């Protein structure tokens, strides 16, 4: 059996202030090296699920386990550290600190994750390698992030998620700001990199056409139940 990088079981979460509104996930597992596409419309609880996985919110019941560590038993600071060490996060857009250089942005998670920093070895070299692998010209490394095109910014975000090889990458609609051609090129790069490092990928999208490239496609409505008042 392959090792589970991410495992949620019997997770329940009540939104604070809305007692009759709750999310329940019976089981979600992502194995090592697996690429999973999580399909869901907006309002399906995707963001909440990602926050639970990343440990910025805690479930009311059940367990969330990342790289073998149960997130729910950790303190806030320890959850932040676990996220820094084990998870690379890519947002839809505006991933980067606009005033920082590309290199600053890529190295940012290492600042909060000493283990990951060790794994990365010489951070500057690693930044160069990642940029080369992701097709970013060397000249941009010391450019300000806001000088880059959207497509380039998303690739910098990938480099940042990959640096120090965290076992799990969480991507929240990373291609939604890109046109069709760029989307395909972006996914090519992402898959090449995750495959090269045997990294697990959990990508959230509303676009089912992306599904064929993933090992597995999960629909939000199949794993999660949203309870609303009166239903």
């Amino acid at each position: 059996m392959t090792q589970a990088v991410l495992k949620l079981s019997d997770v329940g979460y009540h939104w604070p202030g809305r007692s009759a509104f709750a999310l329940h996930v019976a089981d979600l597992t992502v194995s090592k090296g697996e690429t999973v596409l999580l399909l869901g419309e907006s309002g399906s609880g995707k963001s909440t699920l990602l926050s639970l996985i990343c440990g910025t919110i805690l479930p009311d019941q059940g367990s969330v386990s990342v790289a073998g560590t149960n997130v729910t038993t950790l303190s806030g600071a320890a959850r932040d550290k676990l996220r820094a060490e084990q998870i690379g996060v890519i947002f839809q857009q505006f991933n980067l600190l606009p005033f920082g250089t590309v290199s600053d942005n890529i190295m940012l998670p290492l600042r909060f994750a000493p283990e990951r920093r060790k794994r990365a070895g010489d951070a500057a070299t690693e930044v160069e390698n990642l940029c080369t692998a992701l097709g970013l010209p060397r000249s941009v490394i010391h450019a300000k992030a806001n000088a880059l095109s959207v497509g380039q910014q998303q690739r910098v975000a990938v480099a940042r998620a990959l640096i120090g090889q965290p076992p799990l990458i969480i991507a929240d609609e990373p291609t939604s700001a890109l046109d069709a051609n760029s989307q395909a090129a972006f996914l090519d790069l992402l898959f090449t990199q995750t495959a090269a490092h045997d990294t697990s990928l959990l990508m959230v999208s509303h676009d089912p056409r992306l599904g064929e490239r993933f090992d597995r496609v999960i629909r939000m409505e199949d794993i999660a139940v949203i309870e609303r008042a009166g239903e």
Partner: protein
Amino acid sequence: MILRLAFASLFARALTVGMTTLAIALSVALFLGVEKVRTGAKASFADTISGTDLIVGARSGSVQLLLYSVFRIGNATNNVTWESYLDIAARPDVDWIVPISLGDSHRQFRVMGTSQAFFEHYRYRQGRQLQVADGVIMDDLFDTVIGADVAATLGYNVDDPIIVAHGLASFSEHKDQPFRVSGILEKTGTPVDRTVIVSMEAIEAIHVDWQSGAQIPGRSTPADVIREMDLVPQAVTAALVGVESPLQTFALQRAINEYSQEPLLAILPGVALQELWGIVGIAETALLAVSAMVVVTALIGMMATIFSSLNERRREMAIYRAMGARPRTILSMLVLEATVIAALGALLGVVFLYIGLAITQPILDSSFGLWLPIEAPTMREVWVIIGVVAAGAIVSLVPAIRAYRMSVADGMMVNT
């Protein structure tokens, strides 16, 4: 690296950060400037008279005596008789004594009768002596030496005639005995600048034909006749006294205060000045309080700026959080940012202060006699700067705590 990013973030908002820094800088410069003027004014005030050990006058209050004898404000309730004056002058512990006779005026300026000894013994600003800018010290009965402000205001030059009016703001003038300006004194920043100085004998001379404050009708003694008269003063308004040895000051003061022939009062100028400063000092304390409020306003302005930046920086904070930053890190970054702004503002304020001092120092000295020394910041000023930076850090806690709460609630998900 976080530090570098925090600075890069500040730099990216250079305009608002610059404005906030400027506001703090100006408020700090204002506060320190007021503080400088305050201490400078206090020092200048205390320097109005120096080198004089005792001021002697008719018995009244010490502040009143100081006011009319040195500042030419208000009037003496009584005079000191010439006999008493001579008695004091004859005492062995008296090194020198300068008579002062007040009561007449020229235009809006007071006329003071005194002796040559005044120019010799009157000292201001740590022992400086009066200097004649133009002309000479009076050597004729009808000569006068005028202060710098008198000359500047009335446009007088050496050899111009002056007519002295009897009493203050009076219409009866001593027209028979016009005076001649023999010298103009250099600016001192003391009440001497606004004084018309004549000899004691001259005061007697102009009152030859006068009795009980009015001219005796039909009498007008020619000047050359007056010159022949024995012009012994009847009384003095006050006297400045220097003692042989400082140790004798208190004994002499006591002896004068207990003088049996006439009720007299001897005061220590320094003590009376302090007493007077205690009265006028309230205004400067109010001024200081107002400028402190300006500093507080600038800091609140900074707090408001940070507050309003929070919304647009939600994304920035979410990125930090997603990368594993703790909410506490977000909080410390904002406090650090505020501290940097406050520190920059305070330092810039000090720079503004010194630039301002360098520009205004000669102007203040020549037009107000206010000497503001340019010197390294005092401990008090250093504490002000430290206080501003600390206060900046403290007020920034308010938006920082809000950012902390926001980053806990938002986590890494900001859908904006």
